[in-house]
């Protein structure tokens, strides 16, 4: 068992089994949003070295394989719009509340400037994308974290966008899908950010009472206040292979226990072995799995 938990992923991706990956336009995002150091070492971002196996890939090729290494199945980070393109029917996504944004309620040092920077960098208005989309014509309300925007940290604007999207899903009688990647609560909004955990959870309580499905997909990394609220409340909880998922960040735990975390701690596999994740699904199979789950929960019209 334990051996299984900590094994290195060796599964190969077969392109043919990838159900309906939507063709994507080239990414036009600022190269600085490419977080991984490996990308920066290589000229013009044309090549990427895989942190999993060392294989060097064409950036272009990676895009075709849903940002998954074909050799070792390492899952590279994706931004929110790439997720939407990968998972939803082409052209089905309609964004909600794109103009709902953070302010600086506590006048926290450097916060305003930081928000402006993150907007520039990501071309996003906030660290979550919400809206209506469909998977095989089945409508679903989507909450997709943008980790590149301030680590996807949850402040008032994100909490409000999520709560509104869930309430809209209830009104429309449709399921909710969340794809999380977040460092947790946004410290710069103090206690207000903390209460977004309560707000998103309360909205999910209403969704649950309405008998509507909530699918939660945890991607690398999902931590803190997001883990301790809407991320962990899915009817079905899915994680991407190798994704780091936890409450407390590994560095803080290291300081607390005074030694390195055991190999494999806080991975998707660790969380599954401990009973907190239903399914670990390779990104290339994710749309297919979501499609099935949505279909099995379909309500009679």
């Amino acid at each position, binding site marked *: 068992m334990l051996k299984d938990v900590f094994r290195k992923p060796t599964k190969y991706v077969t392109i043919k089994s990838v159900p309906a990956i939507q063709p*994507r*336009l080239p990414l*036009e995002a600022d190269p600085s949003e490419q977080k991984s150091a490996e990308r920066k070492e290589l000229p013009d971002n044309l090549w990427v070295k895989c942190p999993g196996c060392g294989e060097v890939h064409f950036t272009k090729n990676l895009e075709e394989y849903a940002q998954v290494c074909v050799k070792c199945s390492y899952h590279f980070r994706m931004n929110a*719009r*790439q997720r*939407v393109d990968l998972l939803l029917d082409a052209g089905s996504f309609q964004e909600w509340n*794109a*103009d*709902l*944004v953070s*302010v600086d*309620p*506590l006048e*926290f*040092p*450097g916060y305003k400037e930081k928000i402006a920077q993150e907007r520039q960098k990501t*071309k*996003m*208005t906030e660290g979550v994308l919400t809206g209506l989309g469909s998977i095989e014509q089945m409508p679903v309300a989507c909450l997709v974290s943008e980790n590149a925007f301030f680590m996807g940290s949850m*402040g*008032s604007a994100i909490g409000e966008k999520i709560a509104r999207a869930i309430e809209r899903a209830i009104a429309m009688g449709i399921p909710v899908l969340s794809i999380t990647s977040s460092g947790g*609560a946004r*410290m710069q*909004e*103090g*206690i*207000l*950010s*903390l*209460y*977004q*955990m*309560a*707000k998103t*959870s*309360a909205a999910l*309580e*209403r969704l*649950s009472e309405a008998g509507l499905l909530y699918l939660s997909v945890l991607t690398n990394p999902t931590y*803190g*206040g997001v*883990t*301790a*609220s809407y*991320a*962990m*409340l899915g009817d079905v909880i899915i994680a991407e292979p190798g994704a780091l998922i*936890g*409450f*407390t960040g590994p560095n*803080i*735990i290291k300081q*607390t226990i005074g030694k390195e975390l*055991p190999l494999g*701690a*806080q991975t998707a596999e*660790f969380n599954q072995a*401990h*009973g*907190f994740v239903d399914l670990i699904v390779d990104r290339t199979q994710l749309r297919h799995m979501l499609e099935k789950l949505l279909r099995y929960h379909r309500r009679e019209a």
Partner: protein
Amino acid sequence: MLLFDFEKPLFELEKKIAELKKFSAEKGIDLGNEVRTLELRADELKGKIYDHLEPWQCAQVARHPERPNFFDYVPYLFEDFIELRGDRHYADDRSIAAGIAVFQGTPVTVVAQVKGKDTKENLQRNFGMPHPEGYRKALRLMEQAEKFRRPILTFIDTPGAACDLSAEERGQGEAIARCLIAMARFTVPVISTIIGEGGSGGALALAAGDLLLMLEHSYFSVIAPESCANILWKDVSRAREASTALKYMSKDLYQLKIVDRIIKEPIGGAHRNHRQSAESIGQALAEELQRLQAQDPQSLRDQRYQKIRAIGVFSEGTVNATETVSPT
């Protein structure tokens, strides 16, 4: 009693009062008037100091080793308290004490975070930092309260949820999330009172009720000021600066509509007079509970939703979203 550096002006005064009392007792001379005058001056000074606590000083007061914990309040607040133990899944977490109590004639369910009074007790209670089994015990007993229509009173006093490997293994995030979603479901009144430290998500798990009361010199923060300083400036010694930025004092939280009622502390802080502090808490709880109990259960739940739902400050329609959105 531990005195803080910002209480220095009090040192001399209190020393003098003690000396006068001793002298008076030894020599049999009545110095009552002199002592009273000095005591009045000391109270005035304490009042002045505590009315103008800086955020950093407030955190220190909230963490004062002699600050009353939940068990210090129990004999004053409740006619009876039956502690019920265990989460029925894994263990009994002593950093959370919970059970059935009788409050002014009414049976209530009580869930409280408890810090120890000494090292031994602190080890037992993990310094008031609950593990997942603590939150699951809280959840079990809150659900029981809902079943038997007992109001829920929670008492918050934690530096934060446990942040070690075992907490991760047993699903700290899930345990807290389950408390939050459950609190949105209850139809019995849920009143939370912060009596000391309100450390982040670990405190929030018990603070998403109908009302949040707060002892004047408690604090409730998204992050400990030390950790905040460490993240912002890689410098723990700037915690004082961080604490100002975090706006975690009761008056700040009242302004932000997080806290519904601030409970006045005895002059010089709750640690100087446990009984008086308990009486103020008891009075506030009695008034608020009576008000909530008069309400219809369904509307109580709806109001709780609206209260939590309304928390947050953001702006809408001020940015041109199409300008910032990248074409995909």
